[in-house]
């Protein structure tokens, strides 16, 4: 069965600093990969997705992620964090050859210091 690991439960960065959130997946083939963000009291907003093609994908709010097959990773990055980026970030995996259920990681809580 597929699984998703987000090794960092909580990350704190200063505003303006760069950010990288880690995501590793376990799956026999190349899955579909997603990053969602959840602000307090809000639902899950899609940041970006990878289905195929260019392994560096751009998303909303200045985020990008890179798919690395050799490392089974799909890390999320942002060059300069804004205070409004404080939220919980979820990596998710979908199985290309099966139905449509997403498997989520446990999330990384991002705190941004002024």
């Amino acid at each position, binding site marked *: 069965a597929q699984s998703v690991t987000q090794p960092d439960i909580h990350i704190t960065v200063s505003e303006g600093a760069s950010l990288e959130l880690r995501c590793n997946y376990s799956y026999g083939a190349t899955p579909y990969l997603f990053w969602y963000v959840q602000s307090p009291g809000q639902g899950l907003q899609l940041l970006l997705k990878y289905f195929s093609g260019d392994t560096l994908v751009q998303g909303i709010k200045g985020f990008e992620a890179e798919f690395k097959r050799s490392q089974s990773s799909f890390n999320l990055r942002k060059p300069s964090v804004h205070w409004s980026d404080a939220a919980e970030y979820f990596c998710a995996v979908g199985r290309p050859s099966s139905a449509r*259920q997403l498997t989520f990681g446990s999330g990384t809580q991002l705190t941004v210091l002024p």
Partner: protein
Amino acid sequence: EPEVTQTPSHQVTQMGQEVILRCVPISNHLYFYWYRQILGQKVEFLVSFYNNEISEKSEIFDDQFSVERPDGSNFTLKIRSTKLEDSAMYFCASSPGEGLAGHTDTQYFGPGTRLTVL
């Protein structure tokens, strides 16, 4: 931009009572989903729904749960006899159904309904 909406935002119920959580998916989407997130835990898939029937369900989605699309816009999750462990945030999602049949496409989530079972 179209979005998935859910009502109510918070539902409090007594153990053993029936609850219905409501969702309005994005209007031209073909697939609908329910997920739940118990406090402090991962978001978990419950069920997917297509063409007026369940297309996939998880082990969590037992006989206490049912889904329905009662009209052209609403999508509901019913829990027949709530248990304390059903307390969670329930997310509805929808997806266009683009691409190859059976393949994942992008799911758009609603804001969630927080269910508290007392």
